[in-house]
């Protein structure tokens, strides 16, 4: 049965996550072996312990958690819109976040203001989209998608305007924010906590999500409170995205590619797909971030560029495979 296969996959992903964590902690200018890594995390003050404990560990945790958040949000959005090509940003959440965060950067406000503003902007965009899409009473995935796309386009225009107006000294920070960057690593435990909590609250609804993915009215006929479930998915997915965007900026393709890849491997049962997406998303973003800071060291590449570089060919290949 695919169920055992799926459990094997979950365990494999967990093991992979540990491996990638070890790599992320060890790799960099200051090399760390297994013992010094362990000592560093346990609070020792050997050579490089501070680097591992205070720089790499929070950064790794942030990258992993945000990858998980994005993949989980992507999987939920795909169910909500009944469209395998939906991603966490499709409803304008990242556009709203970017607009607000860049406004802060443009005004020269320092941390934590851009992060807080990003969260507020994401939340505002989300309320705007859901409010507008519900406006006329009828609610369809197409209507929601169109509203999201239009709001996202509006935000994108605002972002371009701000970039055009920005003085040179603010520009670099703004661009890095837009491309996604885990180096700041603010509040790593918050992202991890939200990821864990998000997974825990959506798992009890996983079978209902399976039905929802097959159509709203058929799900309703099978006893699912679809109106409540729809609001719940929308809110949860938007919150997960907002937390991630405010921590690492808009990192593309994780939320799109990870659920899609997993669906090919284990099918579309949300009871397995959601935890698998959280793990695999984390692994992908953590690996990409570690690559981003080591591959051209001492230069740090924005992690969003790397996920896109991995994601674009992977996705095109998947799409081509599917068409056959």
């Amino acid at each position, binding site marked *: 049965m695919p169920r055992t296969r799926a459990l094997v996959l979950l365990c494999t992903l967990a093991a992979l996550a540990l491996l990638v964590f070890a790599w992320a902690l060890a790799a960099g200018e200051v090399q760390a072996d297994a013992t010094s890594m362990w000592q560093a995390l346990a609070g020792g003050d050997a050579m490089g312990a501070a680097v591992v404990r205070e720089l790499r560990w929070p950064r790794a945790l942030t990258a992993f958690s945000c990858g998980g958040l994005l993949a989980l949000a992507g999987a939920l959005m795909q169910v909500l819109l009944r469209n395998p090509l939906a991603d966490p940003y499709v409803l304008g959440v990242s556009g709203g976040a970017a607009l607000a965060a860049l406004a802060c950067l443009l005004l020269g406000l320092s941390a934590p203001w851009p992060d807080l503003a990003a969260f507020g902007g994401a939340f505002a965009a989300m309320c705007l989209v859901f409010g507008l899409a519900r406006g006329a009473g009828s609610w369809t995935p197409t209507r929601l998608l169109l509203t999201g796309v239009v709001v996202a386009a509006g935000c994108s225009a605002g972002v371009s305007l701000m970039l055009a107006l920005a003085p040179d000294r603010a520009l670099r920070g703004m661009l890095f924010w837009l491309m996604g960057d885990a180096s700041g690593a603010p509040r790593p435990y918050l992202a991890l906590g939200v990821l864990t909590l998000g997974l825990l609250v959506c798992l009890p609804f996983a*079978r209902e999500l*399976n039905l929802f993915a097959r159509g709203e009215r058929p799900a309703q006929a099978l*006893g699912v409170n679809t109106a409540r479930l729809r609001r719940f998915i929308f809110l949860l997915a938007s919150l997960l995205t907002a937390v991630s965007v405010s921590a690492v900026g808009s990192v593309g393709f994780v939320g799109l590619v990870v659920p899609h890849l997993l669906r090919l491997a284990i099918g579309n049962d949300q009871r397995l797909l959601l935890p698998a997406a959280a793990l695999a998303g984390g692994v992908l973003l953590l690996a990409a971030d570690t690559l981003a800071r080591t591959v051209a060291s001492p230069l740090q590449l924005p992690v969003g560029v790397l996920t896109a570089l991995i994601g674009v060919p992977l996705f095109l290949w998947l799409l081509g495979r599917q068409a056959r």
Partner: protein
Amino acid sequence: MSGPLLEAQAVCVRVGPVRAAEALDFALHPGDRVAVLGRNGVGKSTLLAALAGLHPLAAGALRVLGRPLASWPARELARTRAWLSQHPDDPFAGSALDAVLTGRHPWLGRFDWEGLAEQQLARDALAAMALAGFETRNVQTLSGGERQRVALAAVLAQTPRAYLLDEPLTHLDLASQVRVLAHFRGLAEAGAGVVMVIHDLNLALSWANRLLLLHGDGQWECGSREALARPETLGRALGFPLRAVADGEDAIFVPMHASPAA
């Protein structure tokens, strides 16, 4: 239980400018096989969805097993009545068995997984729709008729007492149409009530013991097949003049100008 499975009292169903039924009185008893007939866009699907509790009533009251519909918890209701969508849709790939297992949802607790008993039920439902061996097939690669039979199997796996089926014969070949009708006739004889929207008049008459005719603009007629199977009545509901051709055993209805004798 001798009371009706489903009872509509003075029910008005509207959608946009369309009045599907005004002041409809209708009861579905165990053993009933009801065919809903009417022209395109007259509101058959909306009426069926309303009877299933999925479309708000403009007026009137619905009772299921004597209890007002609104007082039913959704999952308990789903164990009692099933509704088949006219448009099965699969945006995601998945096995036929998983699609059929969705019918077991109302019978499972929040954290339950489908066990061997559920799987067996789903396999039996697939076999009843002549889809044995299709369990692991991806629903997105099935033909329209096969996909429709998977949807019907999911409804069977739901094991309700009342079946509300919106065009269950869509895309089916003749043999499948006859098999599906025979299966639901068997379920009705075992105590279920079945309502179907059907466009094939003669298949409908061969299967149903009662007819619900929607004439448009909210007008309706409900009665036994014998009472309503007259060319004028059916012709009015379907918006085309009909004539009956009988061979002593069966009567079929054919459109006036399409008949060779006309």
